[in-house]
Structures are given as C-alpha cells and as structure tokens.
C-alpha cells in the first residue's frame, strides 16, 4: 500500500487576533504560530495507520518555501517515509487549481495506490485541491471521508453528509480520498521525535523537474486572484454583559429566568 499525502503549512488563527496587512491582500502573519493544516494531520495519520497495517510507504508532499520543511519533518516524525517539497519562484500566486497542477506532476512518477489530502485548508478553505488532483491524475475519488477500510484493490469509504448521515461508497484503487477531521486521532510527536528526523533528506522539486512551464503555474496558471481582504461586517451583535464574574453570572441567570431557561 503506497500512499501519497499532500499537506500544507498554515498559520494558526483559531485563537489569534487576526488583522489585515498593509497590502490588504493577506493577513498580518508576524507573531502567528504555524502548523500542519488540521485536516492534513488526520490524512497523514490515516496514511501511517494504513501503512502499519498493510505495509508499503508513505510519501508526504507539499508546495511551499523552506519554512514548510518543519511541516514535512513533523509528518516524517509521525511515520512518513519520504518527503518532497515543491518550490519555485514561478509558483507564487498559485490558487487551488495551479497548486493541484504542480502536485499532480510530482505524484505522477510515484507508484501509488492511494492519494490522500485534507478536505480543505484552514487558511484559504477552497476545498478544491483533492478533486482537481484526482481529475488531473485520472483516478476516482471520494471527498469528506470519515471512515475507510481497504479490501483487496478497493476501498470502502464513508463520506460525511449533512445531518449526521454518512454515505458508503466503494472505490477502485488507485484512488484519491479527501480526509475529514475526526476520522482518527492523530498521534502526538515530541520535539525529540522531530529532532530524530532532522537529518532526513527532503527532496526539492521545481518547475523544471516537474516538466511544467512557468505559465502553467503561479498566478498565470490560476483561475482566481484575491483582490482584497476585509473583516466581516459585524451585525447588530450581542449585547455584551459587563461586570465581575459574580455580576455577569447573576445577569445570565436573570436572562435565563426571563427566556424560559430556568424554571
């Protein structure tokens, strides 16, 4: 079972105070911590668990600058065998489609049974790379996978639908699956674990090695361009309860009594 996993390094913004930078086209990233995209951490865990069960190799792949090495090393420490990083000045401005095009060329020469991506990335949230990649590679795919089993040359995958419903599909290998959060419990990697893989080679590939023209990737190979970022308009919003902890607690109780939450 040879598995390729596509991952991305993203800023952690869930608990951060996010502001827009001077270009107006990106957020202020100084001071933000970066980590492996949450969806991808489930994808890499799934790949490693499959490898442990069926043998084979896990190759982890990303598109990004040198700073993405840290993300790849985390995946290596989790148990991936090989890491590839796609990097080239021509990749600048790549949208999801252009990113998928570069990833497809990197994956093509690798003998694989399964390609995994996260459902989407925490930053731009396109949720597009997996589906485009499957199309470019000419293999079947299933998205939003929340459970999977391998049987011979097939995978039985559960897709997460709305309202707690799951759809079960059977799909022939080789195939691509986009992995939903919660499918497993990604293993913890210690700093020691990452240190152990510090010397491991990370192969770097550019447009030349991928046999891509510069015009096929980056902004010129993209469908979309971000014009401007802005903070979402705030609605009427909540009435903020002020006071110390005791005071706000009493206010909450009054509201509960009034609104039928306490009787």
């Amino acid at each position, binding site marked *: 079972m040879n598995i390729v996993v596509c991952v991305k390094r993203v800023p952690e913004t*869930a608990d951060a105070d996010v502001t827009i930078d001077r270009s107006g086209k990106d957020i202020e990233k100084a001071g933000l911590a970066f980590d492996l995209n949450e969806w991808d951490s489930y994808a890499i865990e799934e790949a490693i668990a499959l490898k442990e069960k069926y043998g084979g190799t896990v190759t982890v792949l990303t598109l990004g600058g040198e700073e993405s090495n840290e993300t790849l090393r985390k995946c290596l420490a989790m148990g991936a065998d090989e890491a590839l990083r796609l990097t080239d000045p021509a990749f600048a401005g790549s949208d999801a489609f252009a990113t998928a095009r570069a990833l497809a060329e990197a994956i093509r020469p690798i003998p694989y049974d399964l390609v995994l991506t996260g459902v989407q990335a925490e930053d731009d949230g396109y949720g597009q790379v997996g589906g485009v990649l499957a199309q470019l590679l000419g293999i079947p795919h299933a998205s939003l996978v929340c459970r999977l089993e391998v049987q011979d040359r097939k995978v039985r995958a559960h897709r997460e639908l709305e309202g707690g419903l799951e759809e079960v599909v059977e799909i022939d290998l080789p195939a691509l699956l986009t992995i939903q*959060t919660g499918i497993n419990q990604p293993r913890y990697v210690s700093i020691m674990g990452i240190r152990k893989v510090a010397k491991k080679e990370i192969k770097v590939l550019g447009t030349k090695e991928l046999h891509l023209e510069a015009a096929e990737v980056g902004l010129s190979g993209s469908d979309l361009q971000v014009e401007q970022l802005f903070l979402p308009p705030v609605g009427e919003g909540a009435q903020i309860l002020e006071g110390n902890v005791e005071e706000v607690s009493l206010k909450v109780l009054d509201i*509960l009594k009034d609104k039928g939450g306490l009787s």
Partner: protein
Amino acid sequence: MKEILVLAEHRGGELRDITWEMLSKGRQLAEALGAEVSVALLGKDVKALAEALRPRANRVLWVEDERLEHFNTETYEKVLASLLGERQPLLTLIGQTATGMDLAPGLAARLKMALATDCIGIEPDGERFAITRQVYGGKVNARVSFLKKGPYMVTVRPGAFPVVEKDSLAGEIEPLVTPLSDEALARRFIGFVEAAAGEVDISQADVLVSVGRGIKDPENIPMVKELADALGGALSCSRPVVDKKWLPKSCQVGTSGKTVKPKVYIAIGISGAFQHIAGMKGAGTVIAINKDPKAPIFNVAHYGIVGDLFKIVPVLKEKAKEWKKR
C-alpha cells in the same frame, strides 16, 4: 439567450434548501444580466421534483436515469460535462455541500472552467463576477476575482443567500437524453448509514449548554455538564470536541451534526464557524461566552460575555444551584 444554471440538489426524494437558495440568487443575477435561469435536475423518478422546480426557473433540464438514483460524482460528472459543454452557461451554481464539494472541483477541471468555491457573495462585474468568500475559518472575508474568461462555476455556501418568494416563472420542463451507458463505474454507491443515536436527544432540549474548542481539555467537560444539569438542560458541543473524541457525535450541533432550536442556547468556548451557526441559529436566545471579542459567535448571540470561561462557568453553576434550591 445568456443562461445561469443551477444544479438542483436532492436526497431521499426531497429538494434540499440550497437548491432554492441558489435559484433565488440565480434569478437575481439573471435579471441583472438579462439572462435566464435554468435548473439541472438529475435523478431517478424525479418528475415530481421537476414540477416543483418549474415556478423558480425559466427551464428545468431534466435528466432521468436509473443510474442517477443516488448521487455519485462519477455519473454526475459525465452528465454535467456533456450538459455544460453543450450549453455553455455564463455561470453554473452548485452547492458547497457534501454533494458540491465532491463534484465541482473535478467537474470544473475537466471542463477547464474557472471555479470559485464556498462563496457568500456573487455580483456581476462586467463580463466577469466579483466573488466574496471567507478565509481563515470565517475570521476574514476575501474579495476574489476570476483571471480567466468565462464560463464560470461557483459553489455557494448554504445559508449565504436568502430564499426570495417571487412570481412564478412557470419554466418549461425539457427532458434530456442521458449520456450514461452501462459501463462499469470505478466508484459505486453502497448505502447510507445513520449516525448512532445518543442517550440524550439534544434536539428536544429546552436549554442547551454547548461547549467548544475553548474547553481545551476533556477533563474540563464535567464542569460544563454540571452547569447543564444545574440548569435542567442538556450538554451539546461543536465539531472540534467530537473530532477529539471528547464527546459523542450525537452531541454535535451543526451542519454535519444536529440542528437544534432550544429556548436558550449557551455557547461556551465556541468561536462560531458557519457550520456550527447553521445548526443553532433557530435558538430562542443565544448567550455566548468567549475570550475573543471578535469571535463570530458574538454576531449571532443575543448576549455575550467576553471573558475566561474557566472563571465564569464555575460561578454561574453555583449561582444556578443556589437559585434552584430556593
């Protein structure tokens, strides 16, 4: 005639809300652009749905085929690639749903059509469209433009556009010949699985105390459960808590979990991703406790407390117990 095409989404014999939302937005765009709105309906035994769609579209493109009984990207992609390739609509709208997320990226790539996913705003901009979508988990909005010439495909976030009741368009039903054959599929539909029911049905509770990522550690959940108990309510949660296996799926409020309408909903340490909000916006009164004053949950909450849940929850719990004892 220029055309805006909407892909009807249905499951279990019923059209899903997103279909009406897209048709409303599609009609508004069509009126602005001097275009017509068409709806593509793929399925087996869906004549009744075609009839139901007629008032909201100029044309119902109806593809009836037993191989389309259940959604499958492989069959849908074949049908739509042929349909869109032939008609070249100015804009195709598909839901950013479990269906659309599975289908649209590959379909657009196959047709070499520019795609913008998960959009909350679509406005005509000359020959193109100006798109608004959310990035960084909804903390920031992005205005996005297409770099290529059309036709375009956009996936639409559920709930982003209201359903507008308007005069009937009394569209024609146009039955189309299926391009599908009996060749073997690489992906096959097997069946549906319902989520396991929980001990407590959170959709029936009058009071829900709901906990999110901000709780940090599973050891802190009993504290919130005690608050729910003190209020005579039930404990629920947002997605990250279920992903981490701290609470069962049956407790999850949101798009992929349950839709709830309690009298009072207390959101504790929940930032308010749109998938969560979609599941609880029907609550009578929403009270949110979060340390981040910019958390989107405060946009939908009626009352907010900006502060440390670990300080507030224990005191609130004690006060509620005292009140109950009186």
